[in-house]
């Protein structure tokens, strides 16, 4: 489930001293103590949020509903990375399907000590997507990929849709060249050699820009100074 921003229309607070006649305060909490007309209460639904690790445990036990919950949590992000690399919804959907089916078939490949479930699924998906772009066998599929995009637009898109303020700030903290090289490599599905060609910059330079940028992001997003 992705949180969708909506416009706001907040009302003023109910004042704490708003108390209908005939009701006393709860001496323990100093709050009004009121009993509701409870027979009218209808609980429409009841739900809990298991952790990612709990869901993976249930997938190991072949519980499809837990795979569905994992899909609800991360299917959109998996699609986002596949669609950016492949720029073709049909190919991207294939990658999403392959990613979740492969996870269903061997869920114990996920090791929570190594990273989040989102990371694990995106690692599978990104690898598959670049395989489609690069491998000889998928030449026919590759022909469905539109030509090189405008990478400044890709970068803009990444910056607009980024899922938290922390990440936006971390990306803004990069040198412009570092950010561009990382976006082209990861979201463009390019090797650093291809990035260099695209930018008309020396390969070694692009390599160090990606490295330096990723290390800065590691400090700001993972708190790790490499």
């Amino acid at each position, binding site marked *: 489930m992705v949180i969708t921003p909506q416009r706001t229309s907040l009302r003023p607070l109910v004042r704490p001293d708003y108390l209908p006649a005939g009701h006393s305060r709860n001496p323990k909490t100093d709050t009004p103590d009121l009993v509701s007309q409870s027979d009218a209460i209808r609980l429409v639904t009841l739900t809990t949020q298991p952790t990612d690790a709990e869901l993976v445990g249930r997938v190991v036990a072949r519980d499809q509903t837990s795979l569905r919950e994992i899909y609800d949590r991360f299917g959109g992000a998996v699609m986002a990375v596949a669609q950016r690399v492949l720029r073709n919804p049909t190919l991207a959907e294939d990658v999403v399907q392959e990613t979740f089916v492969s996870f269903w078939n061997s869920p114990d490949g996920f090791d929570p000590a190594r990273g989040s479930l989102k990371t694990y699924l995106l690692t599978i998906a990104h690898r598959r997507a670049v395989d489609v772009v690069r491998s000889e066998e998928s030449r026919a599929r590759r022909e469905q990929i539109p030509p090189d995009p405008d990478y400044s637009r890709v970068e803009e898109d990444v910056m607009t849709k980024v899922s938290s303020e922390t990440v936006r700030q971390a990306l803004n903290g990069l040198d412009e060249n570092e950010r561009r090289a990382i976006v082209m490599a990861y979201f463009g599905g390019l090797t650093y050699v291809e990035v260099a060609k695209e930018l008309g910059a020396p390969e070694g330079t692009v390599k160090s820009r*990606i490295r330096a940028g990723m290390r800065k992001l590691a400090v700001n997003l993972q708190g790790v100074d490499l």
Partner: protein
Amino acid sequence: MSGHSRLVELVPLYALDALDPSEAASLESHLEDCEACRAELDVHRNVAAQLVPDEPPAIHVWDRIEAAISQGDEGEVIDFGAERARRRGNPFNWMLATAAVVALVFAGVLVGQRLAFDGLSTDEGVVAAAESAAEEPGALVGDFLVDDVAVARVVLSKDGLGYVIPTDALDTLDPSRTYQLWVLTPDEVAISAGVLGADPGPATFTWKGDIAGFALTREVAGGVVSSAGDVVSVILDT
């Protein structure tokens, strides 16, 4: 460990799948023996994942996934609907199990107004703060569901800062009515966390103390101290 100092330089690029095949292959064989490089790779992969936006998942793609895995599990019948009902419980059980009277107590602190620090001055800022709070250890995250569709998400950080983020699926009420958020305590008392309005947007609240869940109700405009019992949805922490 020969080659480590040269190969460790390739790890950030490998995490982005940005190496040439020959370089990738030589790093992969080094990774088998080098825990330091594996640990660094984990960090970069987590970083890359953080750059990817959480977009809404497409239901038709799930249908394909479900069809594919159901084929692979021939002979094993999973009744999706029944399994879900079992896990979530009969929607009306909680009410029956917890006896007739639910006390609704108004605490009077809380919501409605935005906290005055950076990032929370816009709806997008509140949503972004909620999303990053949801990823913090110890955070409670729950979705209010109506007919299996999330109408709002609640996030409560370990520090007691809470967020309620409605989705497009939440119906707009008549202006004479309002949505109201309640915190359910372990001793089955509902305490108002704030009045959200007839057409709520992202909002913040604060809550310190034990918590058993949240409830979302419809009330008369302005809010009430005691719910009339028109409950939209309940989240219970188990």
